[in-house]
């Protein structure tokens, strides 16, 4: 199994700053905006963006929620391995809010489809945007595109994009793995 580095920690740092600036451009002080990280992997990216927006750009009282989509997935009973749920932590209503869904890798688009359904359980949002670190653009199963993307990657189906965060793997990096 060969492993190629796509982004190192410096690249990721620059990308996170750019994404933060793009968000500020569209959402000003975030008073009507909530960030929703998709569990489990999107929550690392969401947490990092919140830290950046608060510490480096002075945004205050950001609302961050973590959404688990296990019970909304379309492959329940269709996989050999059982689905394992993680927790949902959304302590606010999203009625009339601008929602930014955050995930690390956009691949088939099915997780985002599930998230769009799941988020309705917390109210009717004003609109929903999608932010991803990696956009695998040729592998979509559904008509879903990100509003904010860190890096576009042309990976084939036999390849896997792996994102590691320093919180769990000691290093921020994105790898391309041959399966």
């Amino acid at each position, binding site marked *: 199994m060969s492993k190629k580095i796509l982004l190192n920690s410096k690249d990721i740092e620059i990308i996170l700053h750019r994404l933060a600036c793009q968000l500020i451009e569209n959402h000003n002080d975030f008073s009507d905006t909530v960030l929703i990280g998709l569990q489990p992997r999107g929550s690392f990216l969401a947490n990092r963006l919140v830290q950046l927006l608060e510490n480096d750009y002075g945004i205050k009282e950001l609302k961050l929620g973590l959404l*688990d989509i*296990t*019970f*909304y997935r379309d492959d*329940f*009973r*269709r996989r050999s*391995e*059982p*689905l*394992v*749920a*993680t*927790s*949902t932590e959304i302590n606010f*209503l999203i009625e009339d809010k601008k929602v930014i869904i955050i995930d690390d890798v956009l691949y088939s688009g099915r997780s985002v489809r599930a998230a769009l*359904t*799941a988020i*309705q*359980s*917390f*109210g009717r949002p004003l609109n929903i945007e999608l932010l991803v670190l990696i956009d695998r653009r040729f592998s979509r199963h559904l008509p879903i595109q990100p509003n904010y993307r860190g890096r576009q990657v042309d990976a084939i189906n036999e390849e896997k994009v792996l994102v590691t965060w320093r919180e769990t793997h000691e290093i921020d990096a994105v790898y391309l793995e041959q399966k």
Partner: protein
Amino acid sequence: MDQLSVAHLLGIKYLKPSDIELIFKTADHFKEVINRPIKKVPSLRDITIANLFFENSTRTKLSFELAEKRLSADVINFSASQSSLKTGETLIDTVNNILSMKVDIVVMRHAHVGAGVFLSKHVNAKIINAGDGTHEHPTQALLDSYSIREKLGTVKGKKIVIIGDILHSRVALSNIFALQMQGAEVKVCGPTTLIPKYIRSLGVSVETNLKKALEWCDVANVLRVQNERMDINYFPSTREYTQLFGINKEMLENLEKKIVIMHPGPINRGVEITSDVADSEQSIILNQVENGVAIRMAVIYLLAEQIKK
């Protein structure tokens, strides 16, 4: 570990400790779901569940039905009182007729011990036992343990006394199995006539003095006297039962520690428990009811996962 080791939920005694842990973890997620503004997930959209209640039930049936609906399953209900049972049809025929309508999961309550086990051997559907005679009521025991875990952090090492009609209680038996599996110490307390002769062989201690039992325990699970299952008089009068085994506020206040009061319902207020105890802050009776929906959602979800496309 993320899968149940059993194909049906027939009783606690068939489960492993890891199954109980998995059910509790899954129930944690569903408890969050049922506290959302929209309390429903689409997981079981293509699953049909039949609730077959050959014996009367209010809360268990409602709780199962709500759990099924919260998971988006299609639900059909069957009650003995409205059925053609009296025509002489056998249980297998009744259930097979229902299954031919493409039912995936059967939730069954039946007056006969082992009805669920019997059915699981003869029909092609997942069976969930919602109470079989005086034998087991697994989802009740799971929600009781789950409520203790929620209130006290863990079940392990806790002292739990089950008070009342142990002889006729499937809740007591399932609770004994579940609590012991999780490392709790279990005592039963009641009139000797209502305590089964061989209960000690399950590793349970017996106490006939209510005061001593309450002093010993962290949690008291109080049961109803099941008059409908009694063919003889097991105690002289309800008044005498209440005097010896009824819990009142004064008793609780005289204890050194604050114990947790549970009751699987229906409560006979003023018989086994007074109203001020049932409604006190030590009582987690209504939490048990809420947790019942989450636990049943978890059980149904985990069994449905085994029905592969």
